């Protein structure tokens, strides 16, 4: 049985379609990523799956429980770490855990041991009696992950768990998530707009854009599906008017695009394309300010499937997320 089965989920806010007919499934013990810019519909999708928002149509089954007909079963089976920091700053770490343990009906005899074990696993045991308002963002997020596990759920939902965290805290959270998967049978669904996060953490990634599922596969296969293996990035001076057209003819070039001053050349053989590029610039008297080659990234995958990069999509798509109105 799949841990999560999403079946034609749609959510409309008036005329606005926030999530449009999305279907996918997540296998047990899988780390599944929903990747997309702010406003793509990720949070709305996760809120429907976690029973926080009713779907307009379609349904989902979480650990076999239907979100429409068995919301209580869903809530018992999952742990949720919402995008907003939901731990109570006026309570200590232990108190936050304790209140949630009681809300989930964790037996009294198991509570203390479980809470201390979980706090230790997120490296917060020495801060167990400190008020959460004294915690850094990373500490608070780790506490919330521990709190989401207090009732030993089978599935963990993390909505943009590293947004707003510094690089060190982000790395800590990633390590925690990996450790969780190794230590337990937990299935993890994570939403993110960070390419590197999705690439490093997820077994499979669903790219969501404008409320629709644009692509779904493993990171490797998604990268392989893009018709080039490398990307050459370069900046020029004194380039002639037909410079882009001339670059199209470079060896192994699979397409040229320009964003701002940076030219991106998709290539089947990056080093060979760079060599040809150098020859061409010398011949045409064009000055090269910078040139670099990198393998295909998820950013390239995103551009390939959505027609824009994540940053552009975020600018254009922010109005899609109406769920934030609640906060």
């Amino acid at each position: 049985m799949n841990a999560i089965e999403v079946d034609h989920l749609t959510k409309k806010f008036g005329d606005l379609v926030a999530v449009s007919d999305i279907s996918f499934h997540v296998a047990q013990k899988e780390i599944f990523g929903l990747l997309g810019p702010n406003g793509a519909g990720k949070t709305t999708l996760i809120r429907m799956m976690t029973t926080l928002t009713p779907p307009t149509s379609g349904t989902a089954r979480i650990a076999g429980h239907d979100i429409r007909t068995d919301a209580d079963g869903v809530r018992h089976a999952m742990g949720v770490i919402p995008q907003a920091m939901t731990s109570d700053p006026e309570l200590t770490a232990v108190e936050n855990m304790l209140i949630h343990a009681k809300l989930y009906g964790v037996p009294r005899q198991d509570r203390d041991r479980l809470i201390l074990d979980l706090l230790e696993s997120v490296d917060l045991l020495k801060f167990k009696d400190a008020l959460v308002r004294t915690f850094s963002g990373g500490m608070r997020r780790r506490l919330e992950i521990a709190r989401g596990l207090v009732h030993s759920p089978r599935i963990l939902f993390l909505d943009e768990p590293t947004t707003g965290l510094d690089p060190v805290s982000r790395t800590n959270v990633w390590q925690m998530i990996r450790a969780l998967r190794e230590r337990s049978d937990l299935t993890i669904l994570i939403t993110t707009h960070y390419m590197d996060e999705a690439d490093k953490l997820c077994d499979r990634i669903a790219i969501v854009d404008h409320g629709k599922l644009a692509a779904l596969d493993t990171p490797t296969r998604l990268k392989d599906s893009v018709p080039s293996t490398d990307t050459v990035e370069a900046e020029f001076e004194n380039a002639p008017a037909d410079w882009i057209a001339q670059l199209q003819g470079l060896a192994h070039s699979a397409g040229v695009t320009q964003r701002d001053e940076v030219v991106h050349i998709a290539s089947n053989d990056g080093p060979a394309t760079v060599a040809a590029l150098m020859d061409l610039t010398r011949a045409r008297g064009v000055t090269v300010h910078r040139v670099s080659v990198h393998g295909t990234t998820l950013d390239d995958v995103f551009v390939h499937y959505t027609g824009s990069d994540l940053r552009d999509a975020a600018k254009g798509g922010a109005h899609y997320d109406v769920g934030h109105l609640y906060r």
Partner: protein
Amino acid sequence: MNFQRIWALIERDLRKFFRSPALMMTSMVFPLMQLVVLGYAFGGKIVGVNLAFVDMDHSVESRNVREMFNGIATGPRTFRVIEYDSLPKAVEDLKNGHVRAVVCVPEDFSRRFYHRDRPRIAFMEDNTDQFISSSILERVQQMVDQLNTPDVTPRLAGQVQLDTVEVYPYVEYIKYLLAGSIALSVFVVAMIGGGITFIDDKARGLHEGYLVTPIKKTELVLGLIGAGTVKGLMAGMVLTVIGGMIAGIPDIWNPVRLFYLALVVTVASIAMMSFMFLLMVRVDDPLVPRATFGVLNTLLFFPSGAVYPIQAFPRWLRWIAIIDPFTYTVHALRNLTLKGTGIEGIYMDVLVLLGFSAVMIAGCFALFKRQL
């Protein structure tokens, strides 16, 4: 219904409450301060009002009248007598606010007195301040009554006399106000817990953390109202004891009366907390409860009879008093603190408050959104 979940929410709020001395102080200090300031400001007797005395008769009888005024000035000190030679000057000073009343003994006072021809004393008052003018008038009327009393009392008096029996000892205004202050402390807790904190927690996203747990809508509503009720009970009882000692309520530690006081404060807390929760159940903006605090305070506290008798209100204000939970709280608390009644003096108020709470809680169940 899972009581462990309800208790978890109550426990959360109580931990936060005890950890926030500022919150505890606000809920108790504000009503206590109001009790002391208003209690002593409104409860005192009026003294030292300037009164102009114009003697145009210059007779033995007019001097007798003057002596009686002097007696008031040195005894109860309701007014200070200032003698004037000129009536127009005294009236001018009355109009300019230098004196609050003018007493004039006319030239023919002694002649009329001896001829038993309805001797008169003129009294002019500044009636822009009803409290002062009625207080002076009461004193002057007492003196006139005394002047009319015959020197020798008839052996068989034919006049009807009223014998007054006061059932309770004299009640100072601060004692009268105490019930309203206790109710106000409960209201402040409801306003902070059911209004401001609830919306703040919602705005900060804390509620989302609870909505993803298996807690049911009814449990959430009862847990939040229950938390406010416990806090209201604590604040109300602290104010009852401290306020009672300040106001001088006799036998404040009587355990039976304390039990009934706790009962009334508890049902009042449920009523006000559920009322506040119903008002705020669909509100998301943290500014709303703050903006409505003053409005609700005025609309609930003053029409309840806490500071002035409901019987003096116009009809429309009496209607507000009828649906105001403050009214029944104040009535029951006043019966307990001033009259020392038992359950027979409060059971109707308790039933009304419980009925009111049931309607409010049913409304909360219907309107509270379990989803975002």
